[in-house]
């Protein structure tokens, strides 16, 4: 199969125009001994054959749509995606365009990103949003870059709550390894029951940023207002890593005084897709906009007096500032950001709140039922959204293996990240889980408990 639309006759005419005899003659600058290697790859498949092969691979998975009932979350959530979202994402006008460098013929992408920015500001309670990051974890790492740059590298400590997603903390460690920065609080052995205010003791005059998660990795809801005030008193900025669905219901980080709000937009109409691509949102206060990484779309007017949109403040970015840029980000998650905008437009203020409340109600029903099982119980007593830590009386692997036999994808094994939470499972419940699903989980777990 080929997508090359040039006939042999046309090829020969083109070679003649160029003034060479064969295609091979175009490659004489390539060292002869390495030129035209024989690649050991399988022979080409036709479209019919490739679809067959890929279908086979896809069917070798057990999916949470038709094979398994899922109670797995931990940063990626199984939500309902209205049909319209993918129909819009499959428009070639959107998905086969490049980054909108030529605004006259890219207003579709530009206005859509502008609206995405607006929707993210409304959701997080913040003033400006960029056009997206790769995912929630890299957005959190970019928050460190912003804060570090804001203090011109003079404050060299970042306080990270141990209840931030373990993979997010890992990415922050990766990103900062060349920065001569101290990461405090990033300790899986810390007291996980202590209130977030206790992080205050780690915040000093040398701290540029404090990072907390909302709801935290265990699903707990805290009002971070006091912590943020305390951090501000030391001159530090605060970044809240937020779940966007929860923001439909709970007090916004903006209202708590956060300086930066980041998170993963996957819950907003993006399929699980085995973890990617999703989209990292990044919102902040207007005063930090010049230090913020990523693309930014601003409103303007064209030569015909029409409201229109352009990429703006580009002087912050790598193609202008090169080694002095705050970030190297170039390609971001444009199409996925568009998907979340379509999703938010469809659900709107009532629909998104409804999804959040369904998650809340079902998760609380599940938690109440599960905690009745002898030998099991909720690990924490704080208010939670749609995820909670369940204490089991045997290893999580064993329990999950049993659940899988019943067609249930169990929760995340917390012991792999937190030694103190051995035999603890993080259970996520969304609007996709019916009462029947939850009752099946309760029944299967009761069996295990009594085995």
């Amino acid at each position, binding site marked *: 199969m080929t997508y090359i639309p*040039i006939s042999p006759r046309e090829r020969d005419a083109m070679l003649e125009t160029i003034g060479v005899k064969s295609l091979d003659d*175009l*490659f004489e*600058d*390539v060292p002869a001994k390495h030129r035209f290697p024989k690649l050991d790859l*399988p022979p080409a498949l036709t*479209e019919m054959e*490739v679809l067959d092969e*890929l279908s086979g691979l896809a069917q*070798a*998975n057990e999916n*949470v749509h038709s094979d*398994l009932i899922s109670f797995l979350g931990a940063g990626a959530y199984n939500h309902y995606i209205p049909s319209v979202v993918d129909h819009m994402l499959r*428009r*070639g*006008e*959107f*998905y*086969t365009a*490049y980054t909108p460098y*030529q605004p006259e*013929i*890219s207003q579709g992408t530009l*206005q*859509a990103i502008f*609206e995405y*920015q607006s929707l993210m*500001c*409304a*959701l997080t309670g913040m003033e400006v949003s960029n056009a997206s990051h*790769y995912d929630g*974890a*890299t957005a959190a790492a970019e928050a460190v*870059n912003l804060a570090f740059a804001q203090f011109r590298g003079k404050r060299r400590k970042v306080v990270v709550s141990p209840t931030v997603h373990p993979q997010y903390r890992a990415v922050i*460690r990766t990103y900062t390894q060349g920065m001569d920065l101290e990461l405090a609080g990033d300790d899986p052995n810390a007291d996980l029951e202590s209130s977030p205010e206790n992080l205050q003791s780690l915040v000093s005059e040398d701290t540029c940023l404090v990072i907390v998660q909302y709801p935290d990795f265990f699903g707990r*809801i805290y009002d971070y207002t006091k912590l943020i005030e305390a951090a501000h008193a030391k001159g530090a900025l605060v970044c809240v890593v937020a779940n966007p669905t929860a923001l439909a*219901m709970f007090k*916004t980080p903006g209202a708590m005084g956060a300086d930066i709000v980041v998170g993963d937009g996957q819950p907003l109409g993006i*399929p699980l897709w*085995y973890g*990617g*691509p999703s989209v990292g949102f990044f919102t902040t206060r*207007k005063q930090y906009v010049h230090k913020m990484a990523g693309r930014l779309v*601003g409103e303007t007017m*064209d030569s015909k007096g*029409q*409201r*229109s949109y352009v990429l*703006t403040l580009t002087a912050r970015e*790598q*193609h202008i500032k090169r080694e002095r*840029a705050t970030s190297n980000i*170039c*390609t971001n998650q*444009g*199409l996925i950001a568009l998907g979340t905008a*379509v999703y938010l437009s*469809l659900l709107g203020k009532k*629909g998104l709140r409804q999804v959040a409340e369904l998650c809340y109600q079902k998760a609380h029903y599940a938690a109440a039922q599960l905690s009745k099982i002898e030998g099991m119980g909720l690990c924490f007593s704080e*208010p939670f959204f749609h995820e909670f830590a369940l204490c089991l009386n045997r290893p999580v692997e064993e329990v999950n293996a049993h659940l899988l036999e019943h067609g249930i994808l169990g929760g995340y094994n917390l012991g792999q990240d937190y030694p103190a939470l051995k035999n603890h499972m993080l259970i996520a419940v969304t609007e996709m889980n019916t009462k029947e699903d939850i009752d099946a989980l309760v029944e299967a777990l009761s069996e295990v408990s009594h085995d």
Partner: protein
Amino acid sequence: MINAPEQTKVKIVEPTIFDLSSPGRTGVTMPASDVPETALPPEELLRPDLPLPELAEVDVVRHYMHLSSFNYSVDSGFYPLGSCTMKYNPKINEDTCRLPGFLYTHPLQPIETVQGNLALMYQLQEWLKEISGFAGVTLQPAAGAHGEFTGVLIMRAYHKSRGDHKRVKMLIPDSAHGTNPASSGMMGLQVVQIPSDSRGNVDLKALEAACDDTVVGMMLTNPNTLGLFDENIEKVIELVHNCGGLMYGDGANLNALLGIVRPGDLGFDVMHFNLHKTFSVPHGGGGPGSGPVGVAAHLVDFLPEPLVGIIEEGEDDMPPLYGFVKPAKTIGRMKAFHGHFGGGMVRAFTYIAMHGPDGLRDISQYAVLNANYLQARLRGTYKIPYDRICMHEFVAEGRFEGSDVRALDIAKRLMDYNFHPPTNYFPLIVHEALMIEPTETENKDTLDAFADALIKIAEEAKTNPEVVKSAPHTTKFGRMDEVKAARELVLCCWLPENYSDQ
């Protein structure tokens, strides 16, 4: 809050989604709760309102359809944006990446339940290794720049692991993409710019002078952003290696090299791929991309964690068990989960599977044929500052003696002829650069029409420069006031002030 500027008589072509909102509309009806009710948490933990727009499904569809009609795209026409490889994106990719088994799998599922995904990832790692000549590949990086950052972290970790702590300099040619110095800058490295010689190659004398025991390595795009394969590539790599540095290949221009030469064979130590350029993953109006990184044997232990590996070998009719493995001296994790599986890996896998070794070589041969053909057609009308056989792209100057028409004007005028403009003002070493990359998926008629348009514009620049300088004339939107955008900084919109739920 950001104040909206005074809006006098501004024409609205398409209202924003917030403008279109009307109280009480909704686009989706969710099922009622089927569980006993739990009280909501205390009021002070809740938000008082959610200022999102309210629209019916049809309103949402029409809005985004209107917006889509404002875009130029590969599906609608020729998009010769240099260094971006805007090739046709096969439609079958859109179907394979949405197969339910891929779409609905959770990244943290037990490996036994996602063997299809893992087999695909393992195979893709192996194929990319074979195509590039590297010993190891990570699929985790989300985009090209993310891959660069990964590569630079690996280079730094390699030197550190050898107790070699004085290496702080990254050598980068003056023709490089901005992401190269930015990726190095993120690591606090000093960037040393290496000039190009008169034939567009790395200036060997300058390189030799910069090579010492403080060099981390060199980041080189080859073919470079002039579209030229460095005629001294082996010497360049030798100089960098001789001073203990590592050679980074920016794979942005790999579309010229498939089945032509493997960067690993040339001596590159590390390179990122752009699955969204070379391997037909669509650009999505600015992502998502996918930027896997390949490394030579001595760097395999530093790759990000986790990689996909074989946990248990297969037997006769039993396939192997695939799972995750952690490289011994890993730099860590680059993002949450496993990379752009659905959007990047499945599409690239589909594309490679449908091409095979001969098809891949055809891609690069025809990409290079098309670029040379266009260059030949334009030579004589436009100055080609580094004029020799090019690879998959070339750079012309968008200026003419005795005319004040600039590259930007030519770019805008091309829109009137229904073409997307080439990249302009890059690379920085060419005055008024027009960087043209046709890709292999364009036919001769399209290339001829594009060359004819550019030749016509060159003529207009002499006979009627105003028509070029005030272009575009036929597009829905005219030139933008970019100063106004930066000065007023209107970066978001809200529901109208008098909006109420009544």
